[in-house]
């Protein structure tokens, strides 16, 4: 029965970080919709502007505020909230809820937790309590001990009796700080780290179940104690690799019905014992030798796995969990899929789902690529097929890592075994390679600890390759397509072109069909517009006569392509629907809102390759396709799609692919800039090292270098000398006739601006101008941005608007465009123009209240800016600050210095009428632990010395101790700031910064490296230590000023919370 609440608060999960990605935008948005459907007043808080859930119409009041317990308490008080939905915002929300419950704050405010209760959180999070609970209900857990110190950890190992042991910190996300210790030395090291990361300074030392199989059960329970299984999942990788890092299939494929019933019974016992009302994830380790199992983990909330289970089955776990949280029972909740039944049933599927993680290792060349108990992946893809092979091959080519399927990898024979035994992101490809070279299925299985069932499937794929290679008859082609091979993969193996394969395929009427995801294996007629491709006889996606447009999605979340593009796709869908056009989404990311089946009119869960996208367009006979919104994934398809669709009714909507090419092609773009009389940094293209050297010397160092064949800032570097250029050419890229490198003059100490605009071919609306806090050269995805600009004058702003307008018109933009400009010595330079939705679209839309992605879509359909009354540029009367969130803590070996290569995983927004307060909110929301007392270490280059005096003085006045190296220290003293001088690291004397950091005496670091050869690398040790000790680290003088302003705000203690509607936005 529905319970009454005056107002319900949903807490989001904050920025995208490793271990907590878009799945919580999906669950939080679904929760809000679910609550509003029931007529509740709702409030939402999240610091992440790139989400759908922070849209103004998600809830009655939306707050973009740092996710801290104190802020949540303020919102509860201000809004008169009496129920807090605890289970939709991942670990972040759960931690806030348990903090508010433990401190008695919730009681004081007269609010209760709705959904997961504090005792359930405690029982599942606190290892000892969890163990006790499981022992009480007779369910086995690994032998373990919670410890608070390293000596206690050693005692625990004695009790367990053997190494290896697992170390799991309590209360952290994605296994941060955990690990496997094979000996005492490793035990000490990992424990020290784990204890530091744990919110309650506690780690668990646990019996190892390495090598056992890992199964997951998603279960659901209501207040009447009805409990059901939604989905089970099998990790292909054995225990020892985090489930977020494993390739996973659903349902379990190698588990007998009897063992399935045992695990299901156990999972239902667990959800009852923990008294959870809503969804819950239960993880098991299963010993394949004897059928013993251990309960490994329970998540009493929606999770990454539940998002996957929702997409894998079609059962909306977050929606149903939310309804249960407010008192409904499963049989009272209608099943939207069938329209005739209730949520009280267990989904049955008739396909194979595969999830494959997407790792960021392409961005971090120095990172340790080994997979273990700590998550390193930023996102994942999901694929659906009627066979395992089909599903796997679709999944692999969805990854956006340039593979066409189970591609070949270069590896020496002698390295294969090591790679199979010690997994990295490449392992599945190496497994394929091992089989190709004749290693037996059994040997590969033994080394990789995969069930031979799965390795045999890989072998089937390899065997099919051989068949294709020997003679591609129509029968072989049919078999290969049924197995899931892409045209491109077949082309590569057979030596024919992809187009020839496509023609051959079509001549034998070999086209995919689309099957429905309906939760019930076809037993009950379903209305779900959720499809996947396969080869077979009967297609269920019948063509309609409606006007319809396909939006190509953004694929997996990875660095450089985050949730922002999903936001844009979803807004594209809404805009199409508002205009009476049916919206069709193609995407493969199970975590996102765009792949929620009730967002679009039809959802196709597919890889985003040309072949797969064309197939959908043809099957649907769509009127148009939008490629501007899925980031680089979809933009890359523009030219080929237009070519392939020539002569059909389907149009590539918006800016023409030819004009998009002008923006992407450097020569064409440079010519356009010359014609428009817009300055660009000098540049050139080098086809060999010698050519590159000559160009660099001509332009003058420093220069920005990057390979021509990759986009998105990959392998982009600033080079200060010929030696560095040589190193770059030797290690980072291959330069050749076919793969030249691009060289640009690097504008030192230039201000960079990001502009997003909408154009209808006649008028231009500049949606927002954002000024980077860091100098140009820091990737715009990483830079801290301020809107409106805070240092440049009106004359520059006018010029920026003028340039943006002229470029948009010259490119005949229909839809969105992003421009990046640099300002140096009063001159404005064009860096790049991107004729597509950028990652700042949601940020600007939220800062101004103008929904740019929707307007862009409607323009693509033929509306004009006049229809919206938009033209030119308007500033806003408050400040919105974008700060980035970085994965350095999770990726050992990675330098935290910001460069032209993007490194951040997510972003937050600080919004306030006061600049410092907005900065404070952004920095705090991004996880910076800004100190209000303690020590500050300052070491700046000569150019910054003058400007650091002010901030240093203020820090001193606020009671901080200033530590500085000799040069900085002397300068500061001369200017009246008292300092303590410390040694540089290379002087090898104490006190030095690293020692003081370890002693906890330094709580903030301001270190601006000199911009010359090699200088950036010198601070690595200190930066890495700062990352591990979580000490805020400012590498620019502007960053330092902002940090000091923020500290002032923090000390003043006057920081309120404001709903988005309270800002004076345009709409």
């Amino acid at each position: 029965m529905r319970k009454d609440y005056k107002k319900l608060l949903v807490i989001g999960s904050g920025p995208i970080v490793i271990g907590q990605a878009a799945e919580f935008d999906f669950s939080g948005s679904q929760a809000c919709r679910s609550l509003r459907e029931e007529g509740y007043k709702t409030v939402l808080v999240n610091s992440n502007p790139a989400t759908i859930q922070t849209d103004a119409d998600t809830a009655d009041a939306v707050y973009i505020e740092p996710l801290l317990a104190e802020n949540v308490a303020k919102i509860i008080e201000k809004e008169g909230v009496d129920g807090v939905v605890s289970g939709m915002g991942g670990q972040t929300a759960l931690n806030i809820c348990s903090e508010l419950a433990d401190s008695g704050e919730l009681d004081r405010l007269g609010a209760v937790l709705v959904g997961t209760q504090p005792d359930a959180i405690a029982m599942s999070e606190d290892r000892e309590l969890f163990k006790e609970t499981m022992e009480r209900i007779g369910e086995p857990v690994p032998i373990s001990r919670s410890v608070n110190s390293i000596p206690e950890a050693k005692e625990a190992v004695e009790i367990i009796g053997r190494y290896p042991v697992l170390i799991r910190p309590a209360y952290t996300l994605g296994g941060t700080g955990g690990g496997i210790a094979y000996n005492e030395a490793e035990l000490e090291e990992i424990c020290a780290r784990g204890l530091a990361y744990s919110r309650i300074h506690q780690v668990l030392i646990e019996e190892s179940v390495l090598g056992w199989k890992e199964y997951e059960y998603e279960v659901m329970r209501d207040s009447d104690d009805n409990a059901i299984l939604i989905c089970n999942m099998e990790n292909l990788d054995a225990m020892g690799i985090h489930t977020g890092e494993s390739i996973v299939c659903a349902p379990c494929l190698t588990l007998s019905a009897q063992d399935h019933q045992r695990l299901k019974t156990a999972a239902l016992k667990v959800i009852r014992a923990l008294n959870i009302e809503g969804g819950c994830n239960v993880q098991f380790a299963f010993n394949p030798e004897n059928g013993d199992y251990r309960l490994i983990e329970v998540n009493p909330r929606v999770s990454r796995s539940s998002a996957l289970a929702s997409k894998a089955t079609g059962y909306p776990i977050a929606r149903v969990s939310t309804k249960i949280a407010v008192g409904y029972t499963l049989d009272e909740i209608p099943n939207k899929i069938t329209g005739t039944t209730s949520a009280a049933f267990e989904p049955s599927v008739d396909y194979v789902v595969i999830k494959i993680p997407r790792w960021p290792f392409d961005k971090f060349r120095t990172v340790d690529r080994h997979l273990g108990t700590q998550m390193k992946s930023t996102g994942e893809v999901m694929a659906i097929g009627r066979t395992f092979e089909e599903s796997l091959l679709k999944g692999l080519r969805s990854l956006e890592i340039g593979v066409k399927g189970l591609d070949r990898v270069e590896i020496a024979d002698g390295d294969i075994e090591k790679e199979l035994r010690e997994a990295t992101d490449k392992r599945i490809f190496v497994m394929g390679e091992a089989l190709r070279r004749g290693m037996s299925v059994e040997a590969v299985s033994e080394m990789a600890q995969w069930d031979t069932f799965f390795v045999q499937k890989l072998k089937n794929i390899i065997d099919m390759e051989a068949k294709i290679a020997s003679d591609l008859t129509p029968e072989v082609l049919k078999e290969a397509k049924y197995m899931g091979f892409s045209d491109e993969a077949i082309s590569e193996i057979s030596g024919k072109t992809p187009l020839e394969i496509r023609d051959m395929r079509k001549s034998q009427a070999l086209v995919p069909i689309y099957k429905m995801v309906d939760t019930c294996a076809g037993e009950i007629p379903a209305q779900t517009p959720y499809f996947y491709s396969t080869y077979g006889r009967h297609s269920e996606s019948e063509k309609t006569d409606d006007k319809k447009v396909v939006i190509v999605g953004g694929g997996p979340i990875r660095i450089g392509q985050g949730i922002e593009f999903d936001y844009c796709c979803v807004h594209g869908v809404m805009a199409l629907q508002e205009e009476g056009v049916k919206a069709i989404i193609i995407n493969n990311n199970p975590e996102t809102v765009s792949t929620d089946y009730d967002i679009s009119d039809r959802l196709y869960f597919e890889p985003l390759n040309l072949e797969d996208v064309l197939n959908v367009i043809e099957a649907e006979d769509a009127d148009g396709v939008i490629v501007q919104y899925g980031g680089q994934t979809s933009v890359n398809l523009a030219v080929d799609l237009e070519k392939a669709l020539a002569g059909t009714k389907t149009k590539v909507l918006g800016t023409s692919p030819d004009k998009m090419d002008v923006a992407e092609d450097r020569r064409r773009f440079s010519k356009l800039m010359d014609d428009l009389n817009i300055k660009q940094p000098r540049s050139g293209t080098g086809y060999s090292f010698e050519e590159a050297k000559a160009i660099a010397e001509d332009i003058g160092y420093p220069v920005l270098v990057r390979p021509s064949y990759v986009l998105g800032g990959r392998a982009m570097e600033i080079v200060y000398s010929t030696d560095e250029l040589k190193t770059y050419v030797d290690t980072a890229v291959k330069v050749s006739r076919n793969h030249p490198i691009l060289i640009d003059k690097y504008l030192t100490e230039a201000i960079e601006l990001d502009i997003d605009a909408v154009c209808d071919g006649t008028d231009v609306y500049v949606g927002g101008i954002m000024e980077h806090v860091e100098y140009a050269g820091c990737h715009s995805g990483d830079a801290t941005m301020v809107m409106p600009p805070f240092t440049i004058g009106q004359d520059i702003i006018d010029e920026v608007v003028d340039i943006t307008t002229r470029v948009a018109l010259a490119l005949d933009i229909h839809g969105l465009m992003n421009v990046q400009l640099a300002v140096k010595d009063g001159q404005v330079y064009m860096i790049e123009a991107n004729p597509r939705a950028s990652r700042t679209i949601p940020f600007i839309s939220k800062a101004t209240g103008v929904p740019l992605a929707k307007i862009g879509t409607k323009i693509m359909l033929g509306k004009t800016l006049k229809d919206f009354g938009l033209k030119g540029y308007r500033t806003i009367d408050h400040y919105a600050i974008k700060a980035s969130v970085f994965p350095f803590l999770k990726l050992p070996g990675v330098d935290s210095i910001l460069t032209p290569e993007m490194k951040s995983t997510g972003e937050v927004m600080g919004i306030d009428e006061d600049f410092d307060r907005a900065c404070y909110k952004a920095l705090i929301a991004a996880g910076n632990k800004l100190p209000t007392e303690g020590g500050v270490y300052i070491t700046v280059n000569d150019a910054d010395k003058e400007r650091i005096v002010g901030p240093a003085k203020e820090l001193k006045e606020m009671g901080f101790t200033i530590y500085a190296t000799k040069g900085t220290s002397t300068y500061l003293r001369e200017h009246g700031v008292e300092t303590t001088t410390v040694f540089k690291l290379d002087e090898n004397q104490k006190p030095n910064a690293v020692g003081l950091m370890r002693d906890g005496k330094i709580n903030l670091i301001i270190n601006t490296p000199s911009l010359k050869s090699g200088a950036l690398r010198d601070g690595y040790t200190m930066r890495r230590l700062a990352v591990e000790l979580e000490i805020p680290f400012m590498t620019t003088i502007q960053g330092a000023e902002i940090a000091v302003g923020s500290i002032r705000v923090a000390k003043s203690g006057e920081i309120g919370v404001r709903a988005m509607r309270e800002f004076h936005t345009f709409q």
Partner: protein
Amino acid sequence: MAQGYLVLEDGTLFEGELFGACADAVGEVVFETNMSGYQEGLTDPSYEGQILVMTYPLIGNYGIVDDYTKSPGIHVRAVVVREFCKDPSPMYSGGCIDEYLKNNGVPGISGIDTRELVIKIRNNGTMKGAIVSADADVDKVVADLKASPASDEENLVAKVSCKEVTRTDSSKDVTVGLLDCGAESWIAKALAERFNVVTFPYDTSADTIRSSGISGLVVSNGPGNPAHPAIMETVVPAIRELSDKMPIFGIGLGAQVTALAMGAKTYKLKFGHRGGNQPVRCNGRVHITTQNHGYSIDEGSLEGTGLVVNQVNLFDNTVEGVEHGELPIFATQYHPMASPGAWDEEAVFDKFASMIEGVKF
């Protein structure tokens, strides 16, 4: 592998590869939605006379294991799959389903768009079908199918019921009877843990049952039509006679037969309930149950029988359980023990046991 066809009586043809035994098969084509448990399906006596379509596309993944049978042999006439596994997981050291079918003389066909087939059955109702080799005269097969009687016009129960009365004495205080209409093996096993058990062939007379010293009777599951003349002449009158003499508990077909005995009617469902995800409401709670039945108790016919509906299927609101208002008689349409977690079998047998204790005739 040899090519072959699955032919439906409406003329629909599915081409696939034949596996298992090299033989033709004719039967009622039905589908099951379990995602694992294929071996339990093949050996379920309630499938006697039927060609079973597995909705899950990968079948045989973890092999064939001795423990996983519901009866000693295979009862389906043939099996239809999207893909069967030639190299099962070694975890259970199980054999290949292909071998298993061969050894039991049962044919299978793979490579079928089973989802298309399932949707056809769902929309049109169960149909007669045949599995034949590629060289068969398909038109003739269709004509023969149309002309042939439905498989449930045969006395299927006779094929799967035991032939003689057997006694299992496990030195328990109470002895109960099991009327075997095609009992899954777990029923006898579960009963034997609590009672001494006397198992009767389905056509045993009420007198014989009464005089065998039992205190209660379980009427088992089984295949086909509960109102088949062979059942109406044997089991139904026997139960009617016993109904006021001892507690009776019907399962599956046994539930339908019990209802018939009390004067209710049964009818054929469009395509039956076969799978492990069927939601049933009982006493305000929802239980997810495992079912395999093609017939159901007609709710409208219960008036005056003394039976009341106490359990309902939430998918289609059909009767899943009945209980007598005065007499110690109850029946469930689903298989209680195959439904773990939400409903453990203890509760059902405890109820039966308490009826036996509470009722002295």
